[in-house]
């Protein structure tokens, strides 16, 4: 029996890549080529496909991969926690407990400019790469915020005065500190999660449950 029992797994490139590869190696998967070749995307012989973390739910939802590993931040952003809203169409099976980071609201050091804007203008401007998580957070805490979506370094936005605050993911807080930003609120703690395609979860139940068992054991 192969380590993944014939399942195809979507593996995230980026910060989650190394711990994920270690986990797969612990399961007995031959990860030598996966480590050696960072240009290759498809490793058919070991049932692995690699992609950026935000694409993992897409491939798993479509069934192109049976299971996948990605951050809770990605899952939240693709299906925010608003009541009545459908999930992302994937099953969230296991908290893998690595890749821990926190979604925070941060603003410039000193008197909080976001608070000041909210008090005097009734609304604060917030830059983020996670517009849904941010919008949900302000909705749930009953504050008005104008969300500005940016694709690159979010830290730039408050330094230039474009916004009063940012919502971003931080692991150690180093980047925030370097840009003279301080955490004002912690929104949600995010770790790596194992997700599964809903049809594979039924039709490959034995393989997926077996894998879950071994993941809980490592």
């Amino acid at each position, binding site marked *: 029996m192969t380590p993944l029992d*014939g399942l195809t797994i979507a593996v995230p490139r980026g910060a989650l890549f190394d711990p994920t590869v270690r986990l797969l190696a612990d399961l007995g998967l031959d990860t030598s080529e996966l480590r050696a070749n960072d240009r290759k995307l498809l490793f058919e012989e070991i049932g692995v496909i690699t992609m950026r973390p935000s694409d993992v739910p897409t491939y798993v*939802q479509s*069934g192109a991969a049976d299971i996948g590993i990605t951050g809770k931040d990605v899952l939240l952003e693709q299906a925010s926690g608003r009541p009545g809203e*459908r999930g992302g169409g994937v*099953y969230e099976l296991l908290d893998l407990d690595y890749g821990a980071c926190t979604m925070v609201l941060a603003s410039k050091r000193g008197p909080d400019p976001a608070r000041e804007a909210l008090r005097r203008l009734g609304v604060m401007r917030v830059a983020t790469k996670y517009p849904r998580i941010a919008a949900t957070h302000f909705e749930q805490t009953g504050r008005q915020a104008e969300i500005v979506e940016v694709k690159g370094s979010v830290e730039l936005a408050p330094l230039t005065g474009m916004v009063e605050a940012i919502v971003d993911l931080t692991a150690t807080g180093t980047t925030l500190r370097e840009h003279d930003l301080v955490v004002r609120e912690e929104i949600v703690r995010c770790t790596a999660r194992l997700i599964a*395609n809903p049809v594979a979860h*039924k039709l490959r*139940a*034995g393989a997926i449950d077996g894998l879950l068992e071994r993941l809980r054991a490592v």
Partner: protein
Amino acid sequence: MATMIHPIPSGTRDVLPDETREVRAITDALRRVFESARFGEVYTPALEYESVLARADMAEAAPAYRVFDEAGATLVLRSDMTVPIARVVATRYPTAEPPLRFCYLAHCYRGVPPQRAQPRELLQAGVELVGAPAPGGTAEVLAVLCAALDAVGLAAYRIGLGDASLYPSLMRGLGVPREARSSLLVALARRDFVGLGEQLAALELSPESRALLLEVPQRRGAPDVLEASAPVVADAAANMRAVYELLPAEVAARVIFDLGLVRSIGYYTGAVFEVYDPALGSPIGGGGRYDDLLGRYGRDLPAVGFALGVERLHVALFGEERGTGASLP
């Protein structure tokens, strides 16, 4: 002359002759099976009064598109055919002797999250069996479902069978506080087992109860999962077994028991089911018992039905033909 491109809303499509021919072959086969099982075809208006459809608890599948008519009344585009048929039964068949059998091939309209390639307009094919209680009515409808899928030529499909009352009664039985139940059900419906575990950890429950509440809804597979779970979910397991025992062998062979099966529509009361095929990453259709719905329209009869997404069925057939998708173990 430059081509003029006139857009249509995302999630809608034009269907051109090649595709129409293939879809027609599917719908013709479905209609033949439905009619030969004595389900009479009905058409109902795509537009209905919002206040009429709102009598049903549609939860996440509630109508999403509203318009106002010339008198200022709010109309909605129907989001399924089960609720309109419940209305038809109460209004047009107030005294008819049950059981009543209806089938339909009709477009329904759903609100969709942006940019997910999900359809707003979907062609559904299904049946409703009104006035036939569990387990006999459920078994009859499951047999029609399999006959329909066989007739269109789908080969590797399986039917997931669960019970909508299972988790609520498990929560009651294990002493989950009333105020915590709905949020646990939301986590389960989102299939967020990590979130479910976190919520359970925050409740005052014995470790055994906590483990059962997290683990039972993840049980699925052959009939032995039912045996193993019978002590904690006795009623639901008995209901599922009663249906299973009435199924013809070729239908029973397709069934996967799924103790965590939850449908996104709110009106289901008992057996629920979904159709899976390895060639498609999402369910092709599903259905279940809705024994309280007719009563809301004034004719209190138990009922059961299913709907298949014709486009999804078409994609699955195409996938099976090309040999794509995961193979069955």
